[in-house]
């Protein structure tokens, strides 16, 4: 009798768990169209060979502005971008901590734009940067550091508790990607080939205080410490995006920080001509982010620095890597061609313009 009872309890628990898992998978946002950057963090864990020379961490200024395929093709550098939408410094720290459980890169590149934020900004960005992490103490700590007052830690452990109300807004995308995902990025790089020239940028507003906040510095210190502890070179980078404005005062603080900690800090905004960027052609959103052509230029320039400063060996002759990266490159060029075709046919990229697709009755 007792045995029967235990078996039935176990069956009930299994049924409940299975249903909960399936429902969670169905109800969680898929980020396969429009806000595709939400899919970036999780995609890293599908990577077959988690062994990279360079690891980028940061916000859109890394995942939109650098192309690991270019770094591979030009310099034989293997790299991955663990970027996320409005990734804040503490997000970056915990992402790095989690990444180090799988691999130990030679160089970590951190995008310093996130230093401008000293407090959590929006729940949506927390979600995009944390939900994709596998459940671990790192994820819990990341959530604790990032949560807004209205958020609950338990919803990061059981995201179903957060997304349960999406039942009324499920779309065909949710069912299509219920149990599988498309590959969105190219080693974390989000490709866009469309062009929107940078026009006149808004005048930077004066700030009351130009000093970066204590929390931002605290986590930058933690990143520095973590890299030092693991024998990783840390590079601080300001990517060549024109907006948000990167103030002189901010730049100076990063110069000082790098000097104090013996780090390399590169403000690529100072080298736009050397990079060869043309903001009439190399941006898809008027200077906020680079498009493919811009990202490839920035990667070529930055790859050269990486190569010369850190002596990263050229691995293009490694047969195993060659095969892996060839596959990646094929997908990269296929997507590039596909995007050009869409631009020609529709005048815009389908994946990023779902509203226009609906208006034009196009199914991407």
């Amino acid at each position, binding site marked *: 009798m007792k045995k029967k*009872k235990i078996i*039935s309890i176990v069956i*009930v628990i299994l*049924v*409940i768990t299975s*249903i*909960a898992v399936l*429902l969670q998978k169905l*109800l969680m946002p898929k980020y396969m169209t429009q806000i595709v950057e939400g899919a970036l963090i999780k995609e890293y864990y599908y990577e077959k060979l988690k062994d990279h020379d360079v690891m980028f961490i940061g916000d859109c200024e890394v995942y939109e502005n650098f192309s690991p395929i270019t770094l591979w093709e030009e310099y034989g550098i293997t790299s991955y971008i663990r970027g996320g939408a409005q990734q804040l410094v503490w997000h970056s720290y915990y992402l790095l901590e989690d990444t180090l459980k799988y691999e130990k890169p030679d160089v970590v590149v951190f995008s310093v734009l996130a230093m401008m934020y000293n407090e959590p900004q929006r*729940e949506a960005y927390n979600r995009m940067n944390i939900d994709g992490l596998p459940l671990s103490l790192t994820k819990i700590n990341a959530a604790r550091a990032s949560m807004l007052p*209205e*958020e*609950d830690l*338990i*919803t990061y452990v059981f995201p*179903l*508790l*957060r997304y*349960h*109300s999406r*039942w*009324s807004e499920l779309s065909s995308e949710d069912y299509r990607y219920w149990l599988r995902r498309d590959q969105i990025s190219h080693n974390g790089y989000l490709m866009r080939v469309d062009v929107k020239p940078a026009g006149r940028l808004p005048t930077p507003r004066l700030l009351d205080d130009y000093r970066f906040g204590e929390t931002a510095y605290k986590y930058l210190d933690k990143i520095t410490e973590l890299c030092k502890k693991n024998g990783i070179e840390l590079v601080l980078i300001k990517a060549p995006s024109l907006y948000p404005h990167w103030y002189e005062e901010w730049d100076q603080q990063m110069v000082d920080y790098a000097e104090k900690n013996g780090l390399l800090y590169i403000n690529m905004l100072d080298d736009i001509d050397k990079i060869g960027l043309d903001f009439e052609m190399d941006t898809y959103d008027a200077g906020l982010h680079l498009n493919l052509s811009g990202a490839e230029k920035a990667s070529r320039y930055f790859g050269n620095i990486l190569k010369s400063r850190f002596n990263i060996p050229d691995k293009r002759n490694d047969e195993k890597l060659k095969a892996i990266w060839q596959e990646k490159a094929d997908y990269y060029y296929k997507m590039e061609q596909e995007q050009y075709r869409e631009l020609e046919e529709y005048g815009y990229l389908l994946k990023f313009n779902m509203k226009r697709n609906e208006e034009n009755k196009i199914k991407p």
Partner: protein
Amino acid sequence: MLFTSYSFIFFLCILISLYYLIPKRLQWKFLLLGSFVFYFFSGWSNLLYILVTIISTYFTGLKIDDLNRKQNAYLKENKGQITKEERKLYKEKIKAKQWKLLLICLIFNLGILAVVKYTNFAIANINSVLSMFRMTELSFVNLILPMGISFYTFKTMGYIIDVYRGKYEPERNIGKLALFVSFFPQLIQGPISRYDDLSKSLYQEHSFDSQTFSYGFQRVLWGYFKKLVVADRIVAAVLTITRNPDIYDGVYVFVGMVFYAIQLYADFTGGIDITIGVAQMLGIEVKENFIRPYFSKSIVEYWRRWHITMGTWFRDYIFYPLSVCKPMLNLSKASRNRFGDKIGKRVPVYLATMMVWFTTGIWHGSSWNFIVWGLLNGVVILISQELEPLYAKFHQKVKIGDTFGFRLFRVIRTFLLMSSLRILDCYRDVGISFKMFFTMFTKPDIRVLFDGSLLKLGLDASDYVVLIIGVIVLLTFSLIQRKGSVREMLSYNSAVLRYSIYIILFFSVLIFGAYGIGFDSNQFIYNQF
């Protein structure tokens, strides 16, 4: 710590696990500790209030009992030595002392409740008088209402009155009394348990019983279904209508009134289901507080089935004592002499009834809305009573039998009547409440029910689908419940069917519950009382 918060569920899991793991003799002490921890989360100052009430009630109870013992000892010692008259006098003297103690205790504890709950209401009323004479108005005071103060104050009052009446001996262990007063599932919104009811199982040693535990868990789940799926979803429309009387009048008021009736029922009975279920999971029996109140055929019946423990509390501790107190008996005598038996005998009953309803109203909230609501309940009950013979005559004449149709008519009539009175709960003042009530008749534009206007009240089509299904489930459950306990009926069915129902219920709460970001975290409506 709200019942609907993750912290409460976490707290409950820890508490219940440890409760059955620790030695049984320590269980009640552990529950006391748990109750204090629960209460502490609502603010440490709240803990002070409840401690003061516990201590004052405890010592008053002991003192009253000491006097009883003293009296018994004296009478035993002097048996045969004192006259009957002396005996009576001595007893009266003791009773007077006990009465004084009781009065002090009641005034003290009611005083605390009155100060924290009604000070600003009193100031607002004084200010409205002062402003008429253009005098300087008083400033409001910043007092936080301790969670569940109305409930635990009434519990202690009932206890001390019963001790005074000699219904039972006072609790000599202050810890046990403290547990009775602060038992955490009841702290938020009752039921207002009596000491002799609750203490039977509260201090007992409980072994884990899977059947009882499972029943308790099912009851908790059912409570969450009512609260999260129905009450917290419909609240958006209720608030939209009642907070914007300038925009939403006429038929909207009717919609708001019906929606509020659904919200209040699902909210309050859901909360009580959670309370009773949690207690049951701990092996403790808590009295029922509702018996399908919306199936009542008259307002009197409704009040026998809605918030039962409050109704019986007012009946036992206010109505009866008031009806038989000396001044009331004198009044009865005088009015009989003056107006004759027929009217005279009604005067004290009317007076006691209206006083009870005034108290009921003000207990619900410190505003004129609640006072008027309470008094109107009293008036409707008295009118119904007076019209009873007339109804009987009418029924005899037109020969309306006890048909299903007529019963349904009476149920709907009572539901609408009670819902109309509750309009006073919803609007910010009495004037607006009445104004809105009358717009139901002056602006009967029923097009708003069909032209999509209802989709602009903060609920979309999917919300309505959930609500309609939710209400159908509640109604079906109540209909089945008339034949007996649904859980027992289910237990006779196959395990697959039973567990399927539980699992569906669990996931309904999880998926369709209105909780988390995007939904206002709604306290239980009765928390504030």
